[in-house]
């Protein structure tokens, strides 16, 4: 399916303007910048390590993004559904995929603006010491790719509801899953249970058009079986979804293809889910 650039561009500009033309948008951006600067410098370890890098921020960034990004994405589709403008938008000559792409790029644009302002952290490092340019580049590329993945996951959360608060919670839970996966075996297993339950619900909805709750229950029970049955790959597979683990190489100045593919691939999968969810109005 080919996308037409002017249509996606119009949607992108509308989203960007909608967020940045609103005082709440600036509150969120300010909170993001304050949180990232606090995580980078207001810790004992930053000065005791005596290194001009962002290792302290790297530890906190997934947790910060877990809350900041869903705050940006919560209204993307929930607001359209609440106000009924989805019907206006989806009856214009625009494809579902173009709507998803335009909105994703708009939210990614807002996040990118926040990230550009947070370059003040790098300026602070340059003032205090002599940060490595390559390391700063890879670290910020990692932040950007992780943010892109979280934007796409947050959008999935916004697709489910017409209530922005619920959309924020769903988005934050989705991002939290990617943050906690791999932290401990039980955390990976929990992420696995939720994903299998979601898969079960989706399968029932697509194939049967109903019984989503039963599908979710079957998915979750299958997960419990795999977990308690001690199936070795169960914990490993879901632990490998860990965003912080895949971000770690960027924070060390390495650009590993596998990690780049994780973020890009995860973003594409989440955006594809959004196009499926946007078309569920037909079901």
């Amino acid at each position: 399916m080919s996308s037409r650039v002017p249509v996606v561009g119009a949607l992108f500009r509308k989203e960007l303007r909608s967020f940045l033309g609103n005082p709440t948008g600036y509150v969120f951006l300010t909170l993001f910048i304050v949180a990232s600067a606090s995580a980078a410098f207001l810790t004992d370890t930053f000065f005791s390590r005596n290194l001009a890098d962002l290792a302290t921020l790297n530890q906190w960034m997934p947790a910060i993004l877990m809350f900041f990004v869903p705050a940006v994405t919560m209204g993307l589709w929930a607001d359209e559904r609440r106000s009924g403008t989805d019907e206006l938008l989806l009856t214009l000559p625009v494809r579902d995929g173009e709507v998803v792409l335009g909105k994703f790029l708009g939210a990614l644009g807002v996040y990118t603006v926040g990230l550009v302002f947070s370059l003040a952290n790098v300026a602070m490092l340059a003032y205090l010491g002599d940060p490595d340019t390559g390391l700063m580049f890879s670290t910020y590329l990692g932040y950007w790719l992780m943010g892109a993945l979280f934007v796409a996951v947050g959008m999935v959360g916004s697709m489910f509801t017409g209530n922005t608060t619920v959309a924020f919670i769903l988005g934050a839970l989705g991002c939290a899953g990617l943050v906690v996966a791999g932290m401990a075996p039980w955390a990976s297993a929990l992420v696995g249970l939720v994903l299998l339950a979601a898969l079960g619900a989706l399968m029932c909805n697509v194939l049967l058009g109903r019984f989503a709750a039963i599908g979710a229950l079957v998915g979750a029970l299958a997960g419990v079986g795999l977990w308690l049955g001690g199936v070795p790959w169960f914990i490993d597979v879901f632990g490998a979804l860990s965003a912080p683990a895949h971000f770690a190489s960027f924070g060390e100045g390495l650009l590993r293809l596998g990690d780049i593919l994780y973020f890009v691939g995860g973003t594409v999968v989440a955006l594809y889910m959004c196009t499926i969810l946007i078309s569920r109005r037909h079901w």
Partner: protein
Amino acid sequence: MTTQDSNRGSVTIRAENLSKIYGDFAALHSVSFEVRRGTVAAFLGPNGAGKSTTMKILTGYLAPTTGRAQVLGFDPSDPDQRIEMSRRLGYLPENGPLYADMTPRETLEFVAQIRGLGAGTRSAVDRVVSQCAIEQVMSKPIAKLSKGYRQRVGMAQALLHDPEVLILDEPTSGLDPLQIREVRQLIRELGRSKTILLSTHILSEVEAVASEVIVVGEGRLAFAGSLDQLRAGGTVEERFYALMDRKKPEAA
């Protein structure tokens, strides 16, 4: 089932056995009708009769559970055909939903960008601003506009690309008597060159603007034919109540 006047143009809007079922609830039961080119057709029925559901299917927002819709020969449930159809179709959804944080000017420019009007945007915006009389509010956020102005901005976006076909879901809903008169006048003017399907539950509206009538009740077709055919057995009001009491499909 169809509008019988064969002297009119070709069929522009066609619904063939449209059904829409949500779980155990059937919003539409096998509804069929046709609207010919150059006709103003009123889609009449009480609230919850299935008017909006039918319009959502005709515009491609929803897919029918069974049956087939066709507008200008395009099938709205096919993604590629829906795009081509929507280039030639103007749609005012129920309650005229608009982006509250945008001004009418921003809204129209956004729709013009999506529709790819390019250099023709300015003249198109000027035309619909004059047609819908919204000059005074062009720079106010839509959230601050009255219901009447919002409805008119909704009409303006539907007319922006000068479409061949208009589908208007309760275009006079929430308007005061003066605004209703203006909108009906606008619809009559547009009806000289366009095919229009508008829904309403106001009986007097049918006689004020339409030449063809489609009546639905509880998701079923009750009547489809010309206004004169509907009035043959009494006033519109009498016939409508008789059709609603009977609640059985009837071909004109």
